[in-house]
């Protein structure tokens, strides 16, 4: 049930996240787009920078849309991991705007970095000061602009902040190669007090080879 009285965290625009992702992917690399939708970003990666792309989608209509573009897609539920996708079969795994919606984000992040060398994710920052204020003043859980649903029906299952996200990366042996806070619809390289001010953040991640990767053991293997 949409609720307009409350502060709604702005989600980064598709153009912005697409641009961020495009900028960090090397020409001609192999890219898997998780939750690829109708294949919009895949098409750009393929046409503009010559990537070999693969989409993963749960909706059949979206799979058909990707096939219509002449691109490949697999039907899979991200909540069930990426069991069919072999280790290291991609250079980049992309997950734009859905990490907070999967049941087990930690597992999915590890899966992304099992199948690809690097992962690109965009995550909302529920550490934003307006979210904190909302909790403090009204005692209400945060909602986001594109998904302004109440707690009992929102697809947003997890409320993480940038600080939380960094902690998780440390804990599971993933290295943040790049962090770009997104504020008022723009991504910036540096932001003072980012965990208070950023609406969301873009991350480029890779495996930390030096880490005693306890968490990696959770990854289902074929």
């Amino acid at each position, binding site marked *: 049930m949409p609720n307009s009285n409350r502060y709604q965290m702005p989600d980064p625009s598709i153009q912005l996240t697409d641009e961020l992702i495009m900028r960090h992917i090397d020409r001609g690399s192999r890219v898997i787009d998780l939750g690829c939708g109708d294949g919009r970003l895949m098409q750009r990666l393929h046409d503009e920078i010559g990537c070999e792309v*693969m989409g993963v989608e749960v909706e*059949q209509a979206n799979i*058909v849309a990707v*096939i219509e573009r002449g691109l490949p897609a697999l039907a899979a539920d991200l909540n069930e991991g990426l069991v069919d*996708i*072999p280790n290291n*079969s991609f250079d980049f795994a992309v997950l734009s705007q859905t990490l907070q919606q999967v049941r087990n984000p930690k597992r999915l992040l590890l899966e992304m970095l099992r199948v690809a060398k690097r992962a690109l994710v965009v995550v909302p920052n529920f550490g934003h000061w307006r979210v904190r204020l909302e909790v403090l003043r009204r005692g209400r859980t945060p909602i986001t602009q594109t998904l302004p649903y109440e707690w009992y029906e929102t697809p947003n299952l997890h409320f993480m902040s940038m600080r939380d996200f960094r902690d998780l990366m440390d804990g599971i042996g993933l290295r943040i190669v790049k962090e770009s806070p997104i504020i008022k619809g723009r991504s910036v390289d540096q932001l003072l007090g980012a965990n208070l001010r950023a609406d969301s953040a873009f991350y480029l991640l890779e495996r930390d080879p030096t880490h005693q990767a306890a968490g990696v053991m959770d990854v289902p293997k074929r």
Partner: protein
Amino acid sequence: MSAEPQEEPILDDRSAGIVQTQFVDLFPSSGPLRFGNGELLGPIRVAYETYGTLNSDASNAIFICHALTGDAHAAGVHSTTDKKPGWWDTFIGPGKGIDTSKYFVICANVLGGCQGTTGPSSINPSTGKRFCLAFPFLTIRDVVTVHSELVRHLGISQLLGVVGGSLGGMQVLEWAVLFPDQLKAAVVLASAPKLSAQGIAFNAVGRRAIYADPGFMNGEYYDSEGPRYGLALARMVAHITYLSEDSIELKFGRRLQDSDRFAFSMQKETEFQIESYLHYQGKRFVQRFDANSYLYLTRMMDYFDLSEGFASLEAALAQTKARFLVASYDTDWLFPTSQSRELVSALLHVRRHVSFVELRCPFGHDSFLIDIDPLGALVSPFLNRTFDSVRS
């Protein structure tokens, strides 16, 4: 397989029209077919049909591989009085999933079959008698080798696509590995890179029913009735594997055939509707299918393992050059989704272009013959885009 009876008028503007089965003798005795086991045989007669028109550069041809008991008659009708069209008529025709106004479609009866192509019931040229069980042991590789030769004979150096479900899907896979340059696209439906142990088990029961029938006479039954009870029983068992719990429940439930109360009689064998249906399927099958072919083709299916002769399934698929579309059905327990996933995973391992969908349909393994619209929605754009890529 058991496509549902057609209820719409069968000759309309979306029909492939009136078609004829054609015959060609390939592999002349001077250049016979070498079977997987080394035996030589020639000539091989092949029954096939075509729909649509081959374009000037022969780039629009699609080959349809039929399943275990299918035939070359995939679409259209043989005459205006035909009661039933081809077995995949809902899928193949002008404006259909495989659009014959755009593509030239070929379907051939498999080697070892009994609907026009050389098989165990054919006359052995060296003895002048029917082969019976002297027919060479058959593999899917042999079947595909004959298909492949037919395509060359038709003047087509590369197919746009090869499409098949079930045993037909196995042929598609074998083709993509064996003759990688002969196809641009491979469509594998309700199939697997090898038959599961469960599948072998059901085939074993079917074969036992045939062997145990006194009419079988070691396969030399052509002058008599033949193992009609055994063959019917084989079909009844197999038919169950093509359905699903849901589809049987939906279609028949516990309903009785011609009464609303039990007969309490051991003489009445077809009391439930499902019983009557299976008996009918068995009886009808005996009229159209040869027991020896059934033995050869089910054994061929049991033996099929795409990875054979390679270090792994991945190594086999590394030979392929086609792009793949793989689809399974959620209620198919004969060729479960897990087997399609295994195939997709191996294709990804060797970095092939592959799309995969598990379709939802209550009709079990037979879904690929029945639930045509969602299938067309996938296959049609897949072939169209492949066609665009060939032409650009």
